Every structure is written in C-alpha cells, then in structure tokens.
C-alpha cells in the first residue's frame, strides 16, 4: 500500500494497521493531521484500521474453524469429523444387572412378561434416577409359583420420543433443500435409539435400523444413518430411495431413545420397581452388578483424537491400533487398553490377537462385558483372527525415599513435607503410570520428589518392583512370577545363615509356612529360599522353595504351600540393577505405585 513502506501482511494488530495507513499518508500532501489522535483524519484511520482488524480476525476464525486440528467450537469439530464419517460418541446411560423374583402373580399365570420400559427408581444423594428395561423378557413360572428372572439389564434414562412428519418437497420451508430430522435432546444415549415410520395413516409401521456404511444397502433397505448436528445434538439421515429407503411423504417418523444423566448414577446398587408386574407388587430386586458405564458425551479433544484414527480403521480391525481405537471409541467405560498379536507372546500363538482392558471403577472386566466386546469385534475382525481377552497383569513399584529439607526455608513440619512428597509420588503415578506400555523413568520420579516443595534440598530414593501372588492355603502349588526384566542378585551369594542387616535382592512380605513366620529370599546363585529371622538377629534358611532366573526375571516357586499370609496377598519384591533403573512394561502389564508402598522419611537440615 504505502509508497515508502513495506506492508505488514502477517500482522493482526490494530496499531500496526494504523501505522501502515499513516506511513501511506505521509506521501500524500493534501492532509497532514494523520499523526494527531484528536484530528478527524485520525478518526477515519481508526475506522479503517478497525475494519481491517475485524476482517482479519474473522478470516482467522474462519480459517481455524475449517480444520479439525484448529477448530475450537464444538459444532465446527463435529462438522469436520462428519467428513471423516465419524459420529461423536453420545451420552451413555449407566447399566446395572439385577435379578428379579416376582411372587403372587394374579391368576396363577404360567408365563410372565416383563415389558420393555419397566422402570425402577433409585436415588444418589439428593438426585433420583430412573432405570428401565430395554426389551421384553418372558419368564416361565417356577415350581413354587414364583417367577425368577436373572441377569436383567436395566439402563438409566428417561424415555424421549421425537416425532417428525415427512414433508413433500413442495411443502418444505423456503430456501430449504431437504428436511432435517434432528433429535431434540443432547443427552441422548444413541445406543438406545429406535426409529420407525408410520405410513398409510397408521396402516404400516416400518422399523428402521441404523447403518454405518452403504455396503449391502438396496433401494428398499429400511436404514438410517446417524450423524452429529449442532448444539451437541444428533441427526437422522434417511436414504434417497436409491441407496436406502426414504419414508414416504406425509408419513410420521417416530424416534424414541433414552435421555440420560451420564456418569452420575454410576455405582448405584439399590433399585425399587415403579410398577407392578403381572398385577403383583411382590417384587424382590437383587443387584448382581451395580450401575456402571454411564458417561457424558464425547468432548472436543476426544473427537479430535478419535475421528482421524477412526477413519483410518475404516471400521475394520486389522492393526493393533484399529482394535484400540474402535473399542475405546465405542465403549467409554474403557480406561486403558493394550492389544498385541499372538506372534509376540511366548510361546507364539498365531491366529490370535490378545486384548487386555482396564475399566473405570472396576477391578476386573466382567464376563458380560467381554461377551459384548467379542460380539462387537466379530463383525469387524478378519475371519481367521480370534480375539482373546486377557486379564491385566499388575506390576507394582515400591518407593522408599529419604528427603532432606531446609528448615530455614520452610515453616513446615517433617510430617507436612512427607505428605507433600507422598502426594508428588501419587501424582507421578497418576500422570505417567497406571497404564499399559508405560515406563517408570527413575530420574523423573526423583525430580518429582525434589519438586514436591521448594525447601527440599535432596532425596535418596530407591524403588523395588513388586508382584502379588494369592497362593492357595495349604495346597502345594507351583507359581511363576515374571518380572519381565533383568534382576539384581544378592552379592556375594548368601550363606545358609546371615545377619538380618543383609538385605537380599529378592524378598517378600511375611507369611506362615509350616508354623514358622518366614519370608522369601534369593541366595544370589539362583535359588529361592524360605528364611526365618531369629530372635538373635540372624536369618537362617528354613528350606529351598524354587529358583530365580536373574536374566529373564522369572521366579519359580515349586511346591509352595503357605498356611497363612497377611493381607490380600504375598508380595514379592525384586531389585533392578543400578545400571537399569528405568522400568518398562509391555503387553498386558499395568504398572502402578500403590499408596501403601510409598515410604517417606524426612530429615531436617539448616543451611
């Protein structure tokens, strides 16, 4: 623009625009007051600069919202994801499993039908929730005249029905290309959505099923597609009578679904029926599995992460990341997942893919969930590949640290410093561990302890890896404990009797064996022993009980038959060599630092 200046093309600043205009006017002789803020000329320059600024801002916003990576508005992110055929995950209603016993059914009926929509109420705090069955259940009478119905799944939510009249093309509002069927409630659980069209003044009711691809669709396929719409809502798309059937003009589309409260009802385990069954109010509800799996809709960050990966999978499970993406996108209750091929396990098991899951608020994965996941994968995985669900194998870290802090820098007591350090270790655990395929970085953990409080001068930290075994009491059994790492060994090799000040490289919590209070200890030469600490301060060997391979990290306990142990398990501790302090877990192993394995000592210094 300016004759004697360069134009600042990349600037988005108001002042830069105005300066650019001033520079231009310096070469124009007619007006000279551009440089004085109170002049009329300056007002005009303000308007021009402001207009340029607004245009640049809007262009920047438009540019940002056009791409999945940079979009900030949820509606824009959903639109971008739609181009990748990705439908954001909706709210999920919490599900519980209950057993029902119905007595005193009227008329001594032989069959009882528990209709879909049978509701149960429950409360959590000041909030009340409604759970309901999703399908009809038919039960035969027992010999005692009662009806026993086991493992009934009930889902939280309120039934919402949206009704649309299909408009002929000439009845559409002006400037409207086609009719939109947008479901009204943004808290919809889309897995509960049922769609039907009522045609010929009610003579025909055509149920529509959800489809996610055009495969196998014909002109008469009664299917609908679901996609994200504005304001966190969802939209139904029907076919065009070429691929997929379109409800005829003037028919009525009825969409029914549950509007849920997301994760709030999770954990609820008491349910009261809201109505009678077969005319009987004598209904006993026993909870098999408390409510779980409830979740809010997918957030922006999650959509940005999942949409391109979902697109890459093409809804087929081929690579390990395909399995991980499809399962985590579909089932929000999955907190962590690890998938690996059978070719990498020892010994190799070709034709299998191993899946290990960790669920939110659940110590183990229920069999019902595994069945659900297996069914889901069966239509998406190659025919010859068998998905195998394996329990996660937990490996723990025991942390012992001694912290020095400067009392001249802090009014805190040692107990306060210990609490801060414990919290720092717990935070490290939350942020970096508690997952599959993670690595404990020794230096980062030490750094986290140092940063727990500014007054901390240094820390001497040591950690051991720990596995738990739950042995059968009094039954001689072989156990294999795999640390999956090279282990340190007691050096020099320990004699049969040694001082209790000597710490073996592999040890355990105390348990009872043949009436003696013993622990496990290695001898430094690959033999595992049972050792007893006597009153004289010496440790004596009771018997050998197995072997340890320090290279592979495998501890074998042979004919191991303790008679009692403290707590929920026997804990076996192993030390890593000094040169290999970082510890990585693979496959189905989850690494975490339990709270009861954090030991903090605090020393005060003045400097």
């Amino acid at each position: 623009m300016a004759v004697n200046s360069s134009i600042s093309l990349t600037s988005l600043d108001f002042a830069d625009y105005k300066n650019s205009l001033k520079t231009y006017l310096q070469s124009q002789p007619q007006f000279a007051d551009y440089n004085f803020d109170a002049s009329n000329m300056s007002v005009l320059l303000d308007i021009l600069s402001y207009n340029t600024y607004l245009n640049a801002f809007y262009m920047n916003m438009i540019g940002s919202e056009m791409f999945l990576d940079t979009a900030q508005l949820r509606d824009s992110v959903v639109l971008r994801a739609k181009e990748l055929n990705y439908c954001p995950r909706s709210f999920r209603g919490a599900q519980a499993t209950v057993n029902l016993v119905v007595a005193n059914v009227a008329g001594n009926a032989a069959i009882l039908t528990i209709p879909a929509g049978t509701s149960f109420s429950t409360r959590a705090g000041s909030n009340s929730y409604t759970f309901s069955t999703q399908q009809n259940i038919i039960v035969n009478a027992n010999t005692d005249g009662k009806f026993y119905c086991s493992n009934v799944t009930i889902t939280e939510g309120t039934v919402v029905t949206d009704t649309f009249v299909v408009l002929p093309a000439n009845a559409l509002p002006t400037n409207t290309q086609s009719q939109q069927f947008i479901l009204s409630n943004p808290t919809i659980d889309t897995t509960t959505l049922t769609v039907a069209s009522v045609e010929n003044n009610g003579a025909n009711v055509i149920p529509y099923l959800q489809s996610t691809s055009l495969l196998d669709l014909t002109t008469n396929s009664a299917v609908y597609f679901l996609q994200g719409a504005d304001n966190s809502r969802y939209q139904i798309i029907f076919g065009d009578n070429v691929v997929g059937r379109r409800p005829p003009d003037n028919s009525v589309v009825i969409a029914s679904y549950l509007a849920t409260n997301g994760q709030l009802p999770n954990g609820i385990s008491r349910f009261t029926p809201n109505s009678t069954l077969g005319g009987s109010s004598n209904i006993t509800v026993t909870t098999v599995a408390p409510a779980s799996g409830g979740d809010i809709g997918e957030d922006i960050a999650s959509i940005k992460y999942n949409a391109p990966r979902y697109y890459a999978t093409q809804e087929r499970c081929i690579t390990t990341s395909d399995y991980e993406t499809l399962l985590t996108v579909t089932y929000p209750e999955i907190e962590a997942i690890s998938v690996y091929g059978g070719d990498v396990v020892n010994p190799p098991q070709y034709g299998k893919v191993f899946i290990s899951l960790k669920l939110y608020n659940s110590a183990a994965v229920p069999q019902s969930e595994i069945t659900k996941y297996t069914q889901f994968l069966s239509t998406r995985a190659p025919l010859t590949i068998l998905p195998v669900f394996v329990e996660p194998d937990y490996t723990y870290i025991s942390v012992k640290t001694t912290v020095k802090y400067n009392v001249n820098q802090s009014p805190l007591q040692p107990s306060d410093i210990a609490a801060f350090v414990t919290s720092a270790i717990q935070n490290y655990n939350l942020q970096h561990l508690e997952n599959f395929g993670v690595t404990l970085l020794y230096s980062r953990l030490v750094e986290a302890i140092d940063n727990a409080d500014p007054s901390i001068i240094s820390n001497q930290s040591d950690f051991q890896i720990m596995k738990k075994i739950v042995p059968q009491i009094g039954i001689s059994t072989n156990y294999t404990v795999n640390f999956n790492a090279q282990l340190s060994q007691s050096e020099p090799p320990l004699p049969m009797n040694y001082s209790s000040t000597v710490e073996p490289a592999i040890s355990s919590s105390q348990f009872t064996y043949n009436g003696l209070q013993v622990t496990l200890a290695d001898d430094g030469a690959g033999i595992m022993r049972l050792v007893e600490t006597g009153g004289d301060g010496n440790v004596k060997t009771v018997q050998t009980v197995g072997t340890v391979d320090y290279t592979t990290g495998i501890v074998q306990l042979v004919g191991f038959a303790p008679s009692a142990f403290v707590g929920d398990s026997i804990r076996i501790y192993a030390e890593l060599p000094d040169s290999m302090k970082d510890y990585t877990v693979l496959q189905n192993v989850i690494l975490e630092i339990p709270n009861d394995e954090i030991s903090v000592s605090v020393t005060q210094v003045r400097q």
Partner: protein
Amino acid sequence: MAQLFNQDKFTPLAKQSQIYSDFFTNLDVHPELHDLSRKVNENSVKQAIVNLINTNKYERPFQPNFGSNINNFLFEPISPMTSQAIQDEITATIQNYEPRVRLISVVVTPYIDDDAYAVTIQFYIININTPITLSTILYRVR
C-alpha cells in the same frame, strides 16, 4: 551574459505554509473544486481540540484512555466545584493528547439556566506566536 533564472524575473506571492490540514467533521465538499474541503493550521487544531474534549474515554477502539470524562461531569449538579473539575479535566486532556498546543488558560463558566458550560480555551500553537482563543459550549446532549 549572466543567465536569468525564473526567480529573478518574478516576485513570488507570500503564501502561508500549511503545517496542519484536516477535513471537516461533516466531510463538506468544496463549492468550486468539488473536492473535499479542508481546514488548515489554526482551524485544524481548534477542530481537533473540540473533538478531543467531546470524546469519551473508551470511545475509541484500542485507545481506552483517549478523550476526557467531561460527559460525566455534565450530569453533576452545577457548582463551582464541578466547573473546576471540568477545567482540570480539559487541561489535562489537552496536555496529554494535543502535542501541537501550549495552553495559556482554560475558563469554564456555568450557564445554570441552560444546563450548560461555556468553555474558553486560550493557547498557542507550537512555533506560532499568535495566541488563539477557542470558545465552545458543553451541553448535556450533543
């Protein structure tokens, strides 16, 4: 023969140099040239001062401190204290935002019956020795 230059042949007319130039607030058109009319020098500065004291703070985009708070004082009860406050505000505003001006005096006279103030500002334009007087009236509604 010595060469005769143009400046030796003619005596140029004395013409006042145009240091400052601005256009009218209402964007008046020149009646003969049919181009935008201009205010120059003294008139340009006077117009700028009127603009300045009639602009409220936060009125200009990205210049929140530009202008004065005189509008607030106009709705206060008319009193010598309010007149003094307006005078101080005008003085400070001109000193802060009009670098072409060296103030001589600011006189604010209340018109109680009209709910208005008469303002008389005397000043020099920098590098011009002639004192200039600007009179304006501040109404509540303009």
